[in-house]
């Protein structure tokens, strides 16, 4: 289903250096940015974790899920339900529980869904996510269409997450941990098996691999990581509503992964940042000759996406890899 050469598992060395520099910039950002922008970058990092989780499913295993946001949202809701109205909940109990909730949901839906292929897989993942969406949307007891507010950030005892800078660094730590974990996973036997499934599932089966179990594992793991992102999102914004599990959110995740470049998790991070940034820029466009460009940001976004698919299917990382490779560096 996906062309094997569209994946960027290894990168030229100088590109790796550039990425390390970007990470350094990220570490130093709170010293130069205003509160509003520190929060915005925190949000981008959370979305980057979300994008990486989808990259595991899509870029590595080749499963295109249009319903990944369901696992993102469920963890946020778990935090919302666990946090009492008048005081915070412990980070150390709520985080594992929320991630477990997402993983469980992913396991259950994955079991039904992983047996389908191609277009079917895309559509059933979307449909199941919609089901979860409506479960929350229609029921006042679960917050309904108005969502639930989380009045306190989780209590981490050793450090104070209510402090925006502390939260920022906590998010960086999560981002780094997930990245390292996934990179190691990519090169582990399990990861290699997943890549093999993406390239040719029949061959893998013929070689004796239980592809159903592998795919289900990947699906569940991806769901759990999406849950981590959802938990952080809920903690950061203090508000969870069904739209976070909706179709648009899932589609955004796919776009972030494609924009950045699939297969190498740094691409997902770049994609998340770039996508949010582009969105921010489009929304803030000024009025030109009486025509409010910012109001019609969806048009620019749509055209941008179309252009992306037509001209840069390997995403930003793919473009950069081409530039850096052509200057003589060995990958």
């Amino acid at each position: 289903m996906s062309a094997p050469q569209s994946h960027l598992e290894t990168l030229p060395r100088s590109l790796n250096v550039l990425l390390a520099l970007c990470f350094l910039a990220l570490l130093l950002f709170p010293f130069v940015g205003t509160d509003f922008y520190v929060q915005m970058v925190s949000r981008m990092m959370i979305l980057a974790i979300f994008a990486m989780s989808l990259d595991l499913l899509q870029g590595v295993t080749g499963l295109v899920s249009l319903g990944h946001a369901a696992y993102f949202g469920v963890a946020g809701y778990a935090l919302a339900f666990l946090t009492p109205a008048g005081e915070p909940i412990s980070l150390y109990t709520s985080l594992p529980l929320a991630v477990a909730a997402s993983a469980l949901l992913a396991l259950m839906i994955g079991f039904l869904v992983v047996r389908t292929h191609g277009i079917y897989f895309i559509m059933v993942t979307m449909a199941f996510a919609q089901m979860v969406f409506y479960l929350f949307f229609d029921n006042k007891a679960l917050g309904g269409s108005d969502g639930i507010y989380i009045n306190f950030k989780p209590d981490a005892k050793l450090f104070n997450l209510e402090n925006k800078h502390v939260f920022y660094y906590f998010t960086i730590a999560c981002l780094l941990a997930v990245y390292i974990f996934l990179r190691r996973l990519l090169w582990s036997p399990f990861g290699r098996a997943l890549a093999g499934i993406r390239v040719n599932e029949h061959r893998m089966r013929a070689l004796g691999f239980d592809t159903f179990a592998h795919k289900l594992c990947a699906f569940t793991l991806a769901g759990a990581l999406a849950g981590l992102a959802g938990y952080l999102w809920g903690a950061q914004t203090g508000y969870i509503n069904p739209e976070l599990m909706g179709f648009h959110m899932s589609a955004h995740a796919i776009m972030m992964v494609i924009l950045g470049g699939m297969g190498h998790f740094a691409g997902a991070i770049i994609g998340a940042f770039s996508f949010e940034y582009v969105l921010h820029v489009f929304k803030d466009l000024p009025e030109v000759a009486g025509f409010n460009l910012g109001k019609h940001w969806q048009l620019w976004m749509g055209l941008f996406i179309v252009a992306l698919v037509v001209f840069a299917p390997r995403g930003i990382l793919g473009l950069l890899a081409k530039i850096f490779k052509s200057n003589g560096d060995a990958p």
Partner: protein
Amino acid sequence: MKPLPTSRRAVLKGALAGVTATGLAVPEWALAQTGKIRVGLMLPYSGAFAPLGVAIENGVRLAINEQGGKLGGREIEWFKVDDESDPSKGIENANKLVQRDKVDVLIGTVHSGVQMGIQKVARDSGVLTLIPNAGIHAATRALCAPNVFRTSFSNSQPTLALGEAMVKRGHKKAVWITWKYAAGDEAFEGFKESYTKAGGTIVKELGLPFPNVEFQALLTEIAALKPDAVACFFAGPSGAKFMKDFAAAGLKGKIALYGSGFLTEGVLEAAGPAAEGVMTTLHYSDSLDTPRNKAFRLAYAKTFRAQPDVYAVQGYDTGLLLAQGLKAVNGDVNAKPALFKAMESAVIDSPRGKWTMSPSHNPVQDIYLRVAENGENKVIGVAAKALADPGTGCRMG
């Protein structure tokens, strides 16, 4: 070490330029003070509630321009954010105005779900916040704050005045129908309280997801239940559709139709004959025969070449309140205690009639009983005088 080849340098330079150009790295001290007062509007400029957002902004600007175009003697710098009526982006959008643009006053919004996000940001930041529409109870009850003022209504105010009017007309058995979201639920609270207190019985409570307008199945259900009347809450053009579908299902004339006044606000032309005879309760009516209302409607129509509705009036009153408050402190928006006191004790000479602030910062106002006749909402009486929102659970200072 080998110098970086040109293209890599270009990429790095470009990235750095891009980042600084869009102000991502601009530190706080660089945002200079200009002496202008920064007013932020967070309203729906796209989607189904866009006309309401426009009407509210028009009202605000009209009021301020009538006062000389300045607030407390200071020029105004406007900031606008389209909240898209999307609750999931409520906090983010409010922060764009409060944290990024550093507004002195935040005016917003229409959708109650989005309002909760604004409320959170307002309480955390202490910015003066004026609510020109969203009637969510919490904003002037459990989550009230000294810096938050509402110039519109609370969701149950219009329906608190509806129950008695219905029972007086002999309609003792009713079905309630609305959207299943905060505004619908809270409107029901008011209806339930007033209707049962007056001796009415609610046969069934029907709901559909917001903003669904497929009423057919539920209209069939209503016909089977055969109540004396139907009471409802729908806002915007969906109200017109409901009235039209109600008539098309043959229920008009057999079952009386009542509603919270938003049902017939601004949509009478679109609804046509289906709206004739529908009775509603609201804190305003275009046909209010007072010199104040007439002057306002003329001024609005001349300036914006459109007829004002209740949303425009609410926007107008927001402008009036803001102007009065800032005049009392000579434009010093940081003199918070004096500013808030001035706003709390303000008497707003509104096109809807004079009103004052309740202790929890919600309007204490008359609710009119209106009937839709010949394309306008004719006032046939006052359904409730000086109705105040109870402000349950509000703890301020």
